[in-house]
């Protein structure tokens, strides 16, 4: 009798897939997610998804994100920004301790796929869209039947199109030539490299002439568009590399370009700026409320400028001013100072890399067509560096400090005779150049690592840009940096990173032979003397 009841219950369970399973069963299957081995957990995730319960989707998503865990009493909880909810009752609970359930990539993939399939029937449009995108990216055919069912119910045209594309992608390997042809027609203007490789596979074995022709036509159209996308990707990457070079070099364009000081400690000014960003970040983390953390970079800019400008002024007043007109000694002295600064930082902060986080608004990117991604941090840096350059140009052109600076560099005795305090202008100019290097350091901390050696990676490139662009010309620095960045990035896909770099260096050497004063040579008295 008991046995019969059990069988009946099982049959009932199997025959109807309920929209809401009963709580006990659901709770039991959620609990099973905290299994011993990864294969237990994978089985549990699949079992939970098989319920078809709408409540399972957030649980599986949390599992994939590592936000699913258990409290001290073993109850399963979902963590969300420090708050814990019970997945069965949906209520917020307070717990003393929380341990996340460990996941590996395979479990993560299973959970994410299952969550996406469940979310296909969600009432929320955005959730459905995200689910569909995730299914499409996975490229697996497990979800085909689900997608077909969901397609019939779908009302949003954009999502419907996504579903059609996904199904068409699967149809490419169908046995029926008519379906293959229809699939090619549906996919017509896709730029997905994954579809391209499936299309190539199809062409390798296709016998039907009509399908062959359509596939050939689609492939050539796709190759043309992908070529364009590749070109714009190179363009963006070149601009981005150019903007990084430019940022590193602007400060040097002032100290070396305008003042003529061969400052080997320029890279260390960038490094000090990056460490200031780290210090400001730690301050924000320790003292200020957590929702302000995304703005630490904004606060780090003036702080870094102030720190490095002061170090720069001290350097100029303490060392460099005694060495004007003796470039070799200046070079050796500043190189020694750069080593000292590195070691000082190593003593204070330690030799290891410091962790500087990207604020949320600089993390990720816009996924454009054909796998080309515009990453936020690089876009921000391109605009930031143009703003810095513009600001500097305006300062030199329109402010009275800029005027005296230009006067001193063009003709020192005459400027002095006109009553300009040349010593003070020298110190401030050097401070300005160093300060700009400092804010460059803040920006560069967002794409690279913050270590005592940070500056050394940029010093050679900076000199290269300034010399190539033309010593003393801001405009030359801009054009020099961007063209070096572009040349480098257009060479890299063909020559590789190593050879590309060598080719750029050879190119600069040859160029300097032809035009020793760089792209935009200054004309005038200071140059001739």
């Amino acid at each position, binding site marked *: 009798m008991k046995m019969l009841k059990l069988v009946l219950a099982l049959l009932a369970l199997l025959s109807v897939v309920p929209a809401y399973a009963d709580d006990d069963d659901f709770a039991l299957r959620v609990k099973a997610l905290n299994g011993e081995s*990864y294969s237990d957990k994978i089985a549990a995730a699949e079992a939970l998804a098989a319920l078809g319960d709408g409540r399972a989707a957030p649980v599986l998503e949390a599992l*994939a994100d*590592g936000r699913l865990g258990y409290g001290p009493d073993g109850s399963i909880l979902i963590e969300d920004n420090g708050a814990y909810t019970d997945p069965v009752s949906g209520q917020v609970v307070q717990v003393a301790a929380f341990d996340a359930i*460990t*996941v*590996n*990539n*395979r479990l*993560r*993939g299973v959970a*994410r796929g299952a969550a996406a399939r469940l979310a296909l029937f969600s009432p929320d449009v955005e959730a459905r869209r995200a689910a569909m995108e995730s299914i499409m*990216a996975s*490229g697996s055919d497990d979800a085909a039947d689900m997608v077909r069912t969901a397609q019939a119910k779908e009302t949003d045209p954009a999502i419907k199109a996504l579903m059609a594309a996904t199904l068409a992608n699967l149809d490419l390997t169908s046995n029926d030539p008519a379906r293959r042809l229809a699939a090619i027609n549906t996919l017509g203007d896709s730029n997905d*490299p*994954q579809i391209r*490789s499936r299309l190539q*596979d199809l062409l390798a074995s296709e016998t039907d002439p009509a399908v062959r022709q359509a596939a050939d036509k689609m492939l050539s159209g796709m190759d043309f568009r992908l070529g364009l996308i590749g070109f714009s*990707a*190179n363009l963006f*990457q070149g601009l*981005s*590399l150019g903007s990084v070079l430019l940022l590193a070099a602007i400060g040097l364009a002032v100290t070396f370009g305008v003042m003529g000081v061969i400052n080997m400690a320029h890279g260390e000014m960038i490094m000090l700026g990056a460490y200031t960003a780290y210090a400001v970040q730690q301050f924000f983390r320790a003292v200020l409320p957590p929702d302000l953390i995304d703005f630490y970079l904004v606060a780090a800019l003036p702080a870094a400028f102030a720190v490095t400008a002061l170090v720069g002024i001290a350097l100029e007043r303490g060392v460099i001013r005694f060495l004007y007109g003796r470039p070799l000694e200046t070079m050796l002295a500043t190189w020694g100072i750069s080593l000292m600064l*590195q*070691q000082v930082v*190593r003593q204070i902060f*330690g*030799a*290891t*890399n*410091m*962790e*500087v*986080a*990207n604020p949320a608004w600089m*993390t*990720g*990117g816009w*996924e454009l067509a054909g*796998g*080309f*991604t515009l*990453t*936020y*941090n*690089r876009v921000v840096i391109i605009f930031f560096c143009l703003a810095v350059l513009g600001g500097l140009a305006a300062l030199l052109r329109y402010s009275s400090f800029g005027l005296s600076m230009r006067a001193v560099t063009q003709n020192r005795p005459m400027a002095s005779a006109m009553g300009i305090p040349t010593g003070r202008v020298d110190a401030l100019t050097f401070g300005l150049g160093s300060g700009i290097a400092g804010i460059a350091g803040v920006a560069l901390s967002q*794409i*690279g*690592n*913050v*270590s*005592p*050696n940070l500056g*050394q*990676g940029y010093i050679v490139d900076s000199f290269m840009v300034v010399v190539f662009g033309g010593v003393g010309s801001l405009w030359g620095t801009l054009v020099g940096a961007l063209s070096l960045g572009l040349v480098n*990035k257009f060479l*890299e*896909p063909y020559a590789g*990173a*190593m050879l590309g*770099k060598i080719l750029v260096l050879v190119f600069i050497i040859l160029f300097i032979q032809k035009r020793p004063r760089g792209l935009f040579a200054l004309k005038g008295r200071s140059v001739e003397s």
Partner: protein
Amino acid sequence: MKFNRILGAGLFATASLLPMFAQAADDTIKVGVLHSLSGTMAISETTLKDTVLMMVDDINKKGGLLGKKVEAVVVDPASNWPLFAEKAQELLEKEKVAAVFGCWTSVSRKSVLPVFEKMNGLLFYPVQYEGEESSRNVFYTGAAPNQQAIPAVDYLMSKDGGDVKRWVLAGTDYVYPRTTNKILEAYLKSKGVKAEDIMINYTPFGHSDWQTIVADIKKFGAAGKKTAVVSTINGDANVPFYKELANQGIKADQIPVVAFSVGEEELAGIDTKNLVGHLAAWNYFQSVKNPENDAFIKQWQTFIKNPKRVTNDPMEATYIGFKMWTQAVSQAGTTNVDAVRQALYGQKVKNLTGGVAVMNTNHHLSKPVFIGEIQANGQLQTVWKTKDVIKADAWSPYIPESAKLTADWTYPWVCGNCTEPKFK
């Protein structure tokens, strides 16, 4: 075998007489520490210097070695390869150290090798490396490729690792990645991976602009077969590489990256939120729960006076090397290099992660292998480990010209790279 034992006993006897003459006047035993404290490698090597100092401190607290105090002589080769050789000479000739713990990069090890061989010194090298070497005067306590690279690739090929069919081998352009990738390429081909499914990429030291390469990896991975990246990218270049990966939206469950040069110490300098699920292969993880490991972590954090400092694999290798040396010295009753070398073979030390490490006659260790996934807190969580310890191959069987070579420093071979025994 019998001769070997007689030889060992003979050496033992002569060696035990030596201290009466040579070191009777000294009441300290000197050990050299040859790690860069400035320059580019200071970032990694400073930690190992501190680890040796901690071990020395520990043994002195326990009454010293052979009734003598152990004294560490620290020199700074400043990430400058020729300077490594000079400093090694200084340690052996002037300071007369009994053993040296040092080097990180393969090029620094190659630079000091002739010095140690000429002066019959003893070097313990604690870093995972490309193999293809076995010197009479060096003991390698880091992983050889078959203890790190090959198991990692095996894991990724397995169902749990994602059934990977397409491979990107990305590395920094120098000897370690080039040799490792050569071994891996031969290994993958022996497993039936086609040449068009392997992409090899090299970048200069400290490469910071990864846009093109990451975009290429993305394109390579979009061919419909499961793709993984095997990274031998070294040092500072890792941070911008991982940042670019995260920003271009490459997730670990789509294209996992397994790294051989990224451990807890490196992760401490990266924002790991977006790297969760990427992998690393080592013989040690800080996260492994074990009484030995707990004690070691506590000892380290107390010694360095920072409760947040992490431990890593080369530190464990230094720990094992130091312990083995002290055991061998007490067993031999002397610090004489020839006697200690004989005593080191078969020496056992408990791994911090469980099991026992054994020193083999090819001067390499038998150790367990762990694959871990990066967690949001910067730790590595074990997802796979070997059932037992794996014996290191000094020469890779996957490179035809190396497969013929044998490294065995006991009778009748007594050789690091021979095709047949020296004594027949």
